[in-house]
């Protein structure tokens, strides 16, 4: 034990730096999962190299947008939601909560690491995608992609947060996350390509994957700002507010 009895709480700086250091170490140890999250986006990029396939999705910008959306969906819905659900079930959060660390710092630290993961995925997909689809991107475009990545990551993280807020069991979270992941992927691939008809194409456009894809395509193509882009941006904020609200309101630190 230390020499003097504890009376004052720890500084916020020390609490945050301790949590961030630990979460960063966990993040490094999960780097294989990050690489696996890139498999599907890279598959999408490679499988759409023909002109016909690319045009079916609306052009190379839309394909890259779709690939980034899948990468972010994978790390958020499968990665973040499952890690939170498992740690909650094991009692990791309860152990952290009996320390003087404010509860918001525990989640903020985890979300910060998730944002880092999202940015790495987005940059990797854009670099690979621009090479495969022969797109020449400026530094400004990369910066815009990073901005949209943060927004898109927030959309998928809020969905993941809503999931762990509404479902307690880690096994159930895993099962539902996989189903949700498959539904959103199929809607994105089949709906956006028009393979399921006009109705599903329209539905797919306003799913989380669809609105995120539209925004990525917008910044990658650097075309004029259409009203559809504005509506997609508003839809992103709508998803974030509603899902994060549900996820925070009903989240329980203890799985029992």
């Amino acid at each position: 034990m230390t020499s003097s009895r504890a009376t004052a709480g720890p500084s916020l700086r020390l609490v945050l730096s301790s949590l961030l250091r630990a979460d960063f170490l966990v993040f490094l140890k999960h780097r294989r999962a990050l690489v696996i999250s890139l498999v599907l986006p890279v598959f999408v990029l490679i499988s759409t190299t023909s002109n016909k396939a690319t045009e079916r999705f609306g052009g190379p910008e839309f394909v890259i947008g779709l690939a980034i959306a899948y990468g972010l969906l994978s790390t958020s819905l499968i990665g973040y939601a499952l890690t939170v659900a498992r740690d909650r079930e094991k009692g990791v959060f309860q152990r952290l909560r009996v320390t003087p660390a404010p509860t918001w710092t525990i989640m903020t630290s985890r979300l910060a690491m998730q944002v880092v993961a999202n940015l790495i995925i987005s940059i990797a997909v854009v670099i690979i995608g621009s090479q495969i689809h022969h797109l020449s991107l400026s530094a400004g475009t990369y910066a815009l992609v990073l901005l949209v990545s943060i927004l898109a990551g927030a959309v998928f993280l809020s969905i993941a947060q809503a999931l762990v807020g509404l479902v307690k069991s880690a096994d159930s979270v895993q099962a539902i996350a996989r189903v949700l992941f498959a539904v959103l992927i199929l809607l994105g691939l089949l709906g956006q390509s028009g393979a399921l008809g006009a109705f599903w194409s329209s539905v797919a456009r306003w799913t989380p994957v669809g609105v995120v894809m539209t925004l990525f395509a917008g910044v990658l193509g650097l075309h004029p700002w259409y009203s559809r882009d504005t509506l997609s941006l508003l839809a992103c904020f709508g998803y974030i507010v509603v899902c994060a609200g549900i996820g925070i309101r009903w989240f329980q630190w203890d799985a029992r």
Partner: protein
Amino acid sequence: MTERVQVLRGGKAHEYVIAEEHDDGSLLLAPEPVPGGGETAPAEDGRAAAVAVAELAGILQVRDLTVAYGPKTAVDGVSFEIRRGEIFGLLGPNGAGKTSTLSAIEGLVKPQSGTILLDGIDSRRNSNQARARMGVQLQATSFQSELKIGEIVRLYAGLYGVELSSQQIADGLRAIGLDGEAHKPFKQLSGGQQQRLSLYIAVVHDPALLLLDEPTAGLDPQSRRQLWGRIENIRQEGGSILLTTHSMEEAQAVCDRVAIIDNGTLLTTETPHDLIEKHKNDPRVREIARGEVTLEDVFIGLTGSEIRD
């Protein structure tokens, strides 16, 4: 309006007014002024009295604590006080309300009513400041499985406001017999080693009160005895301890006073010796005792012999 608080001393509730409320959440208590003002002590005397009261008051005062999970009341109006430097045992069968009481003190569950004063701090109003003064060992210890032992120690020390160098971590681990284990994951440690590490983390910031929820559950006799020794050392260094246990042997060997809780209600609070003396002629206890009455006989006599889940 002046806020009043009740302080339990010697089993009696005494009323005080809050003379000063400090930024760190601690309260300076003064004796309640007499109505009419005729015998009210001067401010300086009141302040001196308040300091004396703060020293006399226990490290933890729990008053009329009620915890409910939906329609089920787990803790029903429980009151007790832990004195400074005391090892206090909370005993009860499964589902009696021990862990719920501890969880309320730790701030993990929100009580329906009651007050919890830890070292003068209202833990319901200033939970983080109260937690800074307590060390906790939960019933099931769980740390992030990806982290190594040294990393876990550094994390939790930081969360309690203690910055440790790698050398200090190595020294600390050596002191608890985990020399050279800093690079192992927590799950690779034996049960005894996990408990020692968990206890080390709980006291890394030298807390005023240590809360131990069934600390020796699942340990072999050697590890259990070793843990008792460590708990005694913490007390000798000035710490106060609240522990829950199912082991009457442990309660008798370690605790200065014990409280028996059942169905969410506190049945009695005594020293183990006084508890036996007080209840040794109780027919419910005599019926169970085989020879000399033990603490376990009293416990079963008071809480019944039916098995709880």
